[in-house]
């Protein structure tokens, strides 16, 4: 009854990783439950909240909606890979300095989505930012300080 585990080869935050997954695992479950990378969060497990957002081969994805088996050969970037060895990413610094998190459970997802936004559109308007981030739910902040932080980082 227990399905055969399967090895998946990927690169996560620049390090190559082999993950032993169940065929039924999502990428989120593989990250969290198989290799203990719990930066990506589960808020809904069905693509509605963005708390599990990671970047897969340059594309922003909700990792709860990607099967672990699909990431064979892919490069994944998670919130754990956003800061360099010595320095936080400017988005992280700005979120901190501008109090863009209260409980912080949505923060990893917002950071990854905002990172992807700025890759795609380095100078977004407030409206573009709000639309881009509409797939990430935050129940604590009312979004103000998150939007402000992203716009501040974009302005440099």
């Amino acid at each position: 009854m227990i399905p055969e585990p399967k090895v998946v080869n990927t690169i996560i935050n620049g390090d190559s990783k082999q993950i032993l997954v169940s065929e039924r695992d999502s990428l989120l479950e593989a990250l969290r439950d198989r290799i203990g990378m719990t930066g990506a969060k589960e808020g809904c497990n069905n693509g509605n909240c963005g708390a599990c957002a990671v970047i897969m081969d340059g594309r922003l994805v909700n990792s709860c909606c990607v099967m672990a088996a699909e990431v064979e050969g892919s490069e994944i970037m998670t919130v754990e890979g956003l800061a360099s060895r010595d320095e936080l990413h400017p988005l992280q610094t700005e979120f901190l300095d501008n109090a863009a998190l209260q409980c912080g459970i949505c923060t990893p997802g917002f950071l990854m989505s905002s990172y992807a936004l700025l890759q795609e559109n380095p100078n977004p308007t407030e409206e573009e930012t709000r639309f881009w981030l509409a797939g990430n739910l935050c129940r604590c902040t009312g979004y103000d300080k998150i939007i402000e932080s992203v716009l501040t980082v974009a302005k440099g």
Partner: protein
Amino acid sequence: MVATGKPQYKIIGTRPRRPDGVDKVTGRAQYGADIKLEGLLYGAVLRSPHAHALIKSIDTSKAEALDGVHAVITNADLVGSGQTVQPATAEALEPGKASPRWAAESILAGPKVLYHGHAVAAVAADDVHIAQDALELIDVEYEILPHVVDVQDAMLDGAPILHPQLRTGVRAAGVDTRSDIETNLASHMRLESGDIEKGFAAADLTIEREFTSSQFHQGYIEPQNATAFWSHDGRINIWTSTQGSFMARDATADVLGVPVAQVKVIPMEIGGGFGGKIPIYLEPMAAVLSKKSSRPVKMWMDREAVFQATGPTASSYSKVKIGVTNDGTITAAECLFAMGAGGYPGSPVGAGVMCALAPYKIDNQVIDGLDVVLNTPKTSAYRAPGAPATEYAVESVMDEIAEQLDMDPIDLRLVNVAEEGVKNSSGTPWPKIGAKDVLEAMKSHPHYLSEIQGEDVGRGIAIGFWFNGGMESSSSARVNKDGSIALILGSVDIGGSRASISMQLAETLGVTYEQIAPQVTDTDSVGYTAVTGGSRTTFAGGWVVYELGQMIKAEMISRASKIWDISGDEITYSDEGTVVGPDDAEGNKRAFSFNELASKLQATGGLIAVSASSSHTTQGAAYGGHIVDLKVDRDTGKTEILRYTAIQDVGTAIHPDYVEGQIQGGIAQGVGMALNEEYYYDSDGHLMNGSFLDYRVPVANDLPMLDVEMVEVPNPGHPFGVRGVGEVPIVPPQPTIRNAIYDAIGVRFYHTPMSPRRVLDELL
């Protein structure tokens, strides 16, 4: 910021980084579901497909036989799982009091399931998929009973009865509604003062209206979770995301029937709560699964379970009648509020009753509140529990009065505003409050003074009140040899309280914020601390560290007195954290900086360690006023918020960024209640929209920037003037938006949410 007589602070009012911030932006912070233990099993819960049914039998044998399954439990395992103390099983019900059995049956259903999603059985297995497979192998035989999910229907004669033993109790003097008939009315309360008949007789205008509101969910992004290990020696460790680790510990011990000291709760970081993470759900299940399997068990809810089975707020029915003279003076008010408690008694109607008329001075008033059980999940607190519904009704009537009297709605409120010395609905005189300051700040705010233009565009205002909580808090502190201070907190940090409490200790001692290292700890390592809720944490946490600070100062003075060999009476502790004595015989200054003296502690009796617990009832009541401009789309029924301003008396803003953030977050949730969010049940009592897609909370492009203006009327009952700020802002949005929609399209709504469908129904 408008400040009245605010002392000069060095740290309070600044905006430092929060101590837990780096962990939270790098993904390192450990939330409940992030815990990993050796030998960990994963749990899953079987939930009722019916709104109301008798459980005839449960057969778990096939599930138990599944490969990878380690334990299966039902209610029978929960009750009596303790080794030493039997759980209370009293059947007899005192009026208005919950049966002790209900606590266990709300965790895992007893003879009946009372709502769609009520937990029936739980499984622990090697991974979550196996646990879910096992659920499908559990056979439950139900006998479906008639159900009721609407609060007004549940009060009708002949309504399906949830608890045959329930009789209406009395919680307030004056009315006896005790009866011998079966009922869904769990309790009745009344507040009464003056003579309403005389009051209404003196009125030139009386308006009476009825209102209803749907059920709303707190919508925290992190689902409930719990991990437990029940050791062979009987000790139970529980790692969980809870708003109150001590409350979770005590409630779990009660349900399991074990001594409190046998349970340790280790609070993990918490991903939002808003009141919804005060009750326990998974903790006892995980503990019993662990006991049965001798392994640690981790459980977390899926989102559908969160919607189906964790406390939303109450649906409500309100009737409000207010009489005024032609100059706007309120002569009398009469209100009835009924709230749906869910499957077990305990809606927030009591708090709603006490808040309903709190902004105003009303000599003649009667307020009744009814707590009604029905077949929906047991409600739990949700940010200012009870107040949004009752104040929405009152503020809506106030708007209609202002219109009929042709008065500015802020002026109408100023005529009646409650002030220091005025008695509230419970008969207690208000201490210093800022309701009037808020109204005056609203009136002169550029938003209110601006012109609005455009078709189907409107403006509305309303004010809101919440008590704020006091209650017990504990902390301890140790001064290290370099002057840094380890601060141990009993309050879980749901949104910046490590920062706001550390700032108050730093201010008390005249040291820097950075030298304080706060840490939230488990229930064995700090004194009892009540929940992080009720807008109490920065208030009560601040009080405790202020007291710790006084203890540290006294100890520092006594050490200096030893070193200098003079009496402590001659030594002072300055605001800068310097310990100063009189000049010595040679005329040399005697002074130690905090850090200098800290370096001498070990040689003068050891490092300083102090702890304190306190419970102050001097929390400051708080008011907020909101102004909205919005536009209604006549084709889609959708309301767009164009501009939003909140003005709130925050007492003293300790960390202004987090104060603003609380207010903005409260507005966003209130906007959701006003325009969109609600539970949908089908005719079988099934919750139809248990996902974030279908229960749609406001997203980033639903809102504009939310402007916050803080008025600071320091609370005289707190060393730094702190008032709670978190709950007030969820109160005004519903009436503010309702009143603006009327201004925009000329339609008065009597139900929230005013969803696009309901707006279209009115327009078409």
